[in-house]
């Protein structure tokens, strides 16, 4: 089973512009208890309030997760590509916990298999 977490929409709440326009869904590269990072091909101001839609894609289903958040940082990681870190502010905490559980569950499955093949104490 393999899961993918994508950001399908990021709207700047001040300008009402969709920051992702023309960039397609962005794969979330890293997540934390209530934050995540995505690679963006445009600049977003630090501190900007954004409305986002996240999508968890599994082979069995697709689960959408809307939230509002704040841009914590926007760092250029290569020419024209920015790593944008977003802190989720208003969101369904229960649904987010479910997403984290699913992602961590996949890691737990891999760990169990990895350890049993390694066969070391």
């Amino acid at each position: 089973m393999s899961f993918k977490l994508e950001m399908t929409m990021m709207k700047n709440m001040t300008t009402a512009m969709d920051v992702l326009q023309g960039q397609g869904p962005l794969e979330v590269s890293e997540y934390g208890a209530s934050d995540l990072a995505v690679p963006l091909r445009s600049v977003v101001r630090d501190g900007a309030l954004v409305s986002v839609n996240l999508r968890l894609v599994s082979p069995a289903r697709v689960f959408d997760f809307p939230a509002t958040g704040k841009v914590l940082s926007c760092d250029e990681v290569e020419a024209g590509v920015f790593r944008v870190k977003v802190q989720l502010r208003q969101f369904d905490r229960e649904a987010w916990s479910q997403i984290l559980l699913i992602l961590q569950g996949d890691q737990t499955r891999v760990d169990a298999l990895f350890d049993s093949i390694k066969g070391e104490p």
Partner: protein
Amino acid sequence: MSTNFAAQMKAFLGDGICLLVEPSSSFGASLQSCLAEIGIPLSQVATSKKFEEAKKIVEEKKPKLIVTEYDLQPGMGLELIEMQETQYDDNARIGMIVTKNSSDSAVAEAAEGAVDAFLLKPFSVGIFRTKLSDVLTRKTRPSDYQKLLQVGRTKAAANDFEGAIAAFNAAKTRETKPSMACCMAAKIYERQEKWELALAEYRQGRQFQPLHYKCMIGEFEVLSKLKRYADAYEVVGRLRDNYPIPPVRLGEFFTAAVFTYNFADLPRYFEMYLAFENRTPWLTNLVAVGLTAAGKYHLQKKDPAKAMPFFEMGLTARGRDITYVELVFDELMKAEAFKEAEFILSKTLPADVGGKQNNQMRFRIDQRTLTPEQLVERGKRMINEGQGSPEIYRLMVELLAKLGRTTMAESMISTAAKDYPDLRPALYAILAKYPAK
């Protein structure tokens, strides 16, 4: 961030470097920030997006910590970690995979090798830190058992086999289920070609943990080496039922299944083969050879219907390569399975239809339906176009001889002898069977 972990990491790395191999800038930046949080200074982190460049860095800078993606076309992150394994003692290096590839076979392949941790993307900083910290603790503060295993490994690397065995035997007394110690002792016996002792160690390892993967693999390898294929294949059954099969093992299992006539298992292995993202030419070849052997076996038993699924799977594996189509076609023609041969011929890729090999096969099939005159015309045309083959020449000479066109048959033999000098006696022998009219 625990300062203890940072200090441990600093002590582990010393002046050494960490290599981060990640094709995606975004994932790369996330990983870099994780390393920075742990306290690894930027000056000690080398980064690369490409396999070849990363390989060079491993060769030249010998990183003590490697964090790499699994798929690095044209190479694999595993190869970098295997290179690192040759540069350091196990306790002095860390190799981590961070990847989108969560397939069981990828995990199994990594765990079989020198990889210390396997992390899925997207990752959480917390999990990354915990994983690295766990590995670091295991390496820098090993248990007595692990210390003895390391002593054994070091002695084995110095070819001190007796010393290594003594260390592994001592290790066995420090752990309730010391299967890994048995496995390592078995490896020493393998290097000394003491096969029965190696087998005994693997089996002892499995007494402690009946499904110990590395002991089962070791037992399978030794039994295969001893050509005790039936016993080896019994181990395959246990492995297959309990673990995912990495690509390198699938080839071996395919071979073992063929040697033990367990052809009924091949479709299952073939499904696994199709599910692999990275199918090497080596594996494809092994799979096709195994499937062909199964098909030929059923042809020998005069059962072309049972042979066909194997040949068709072989065709899929080889991408309907014309050489393979011809090989299967030949087998079916030899077995006089003409309908099946025609079916296989119909699987020729459009790009190969009308080509030399396809025309030669078509001629051989059509000899059953065309009139002798039509066949002679077709054969002459093919030979004039340089599409003759020993089989075509044989058929043509026989046909012309049967029709009583001896002069033309002799002329055909002369033409054939230019390309295939050794064929001349066989062709004259055919001609001699039919007295001139």
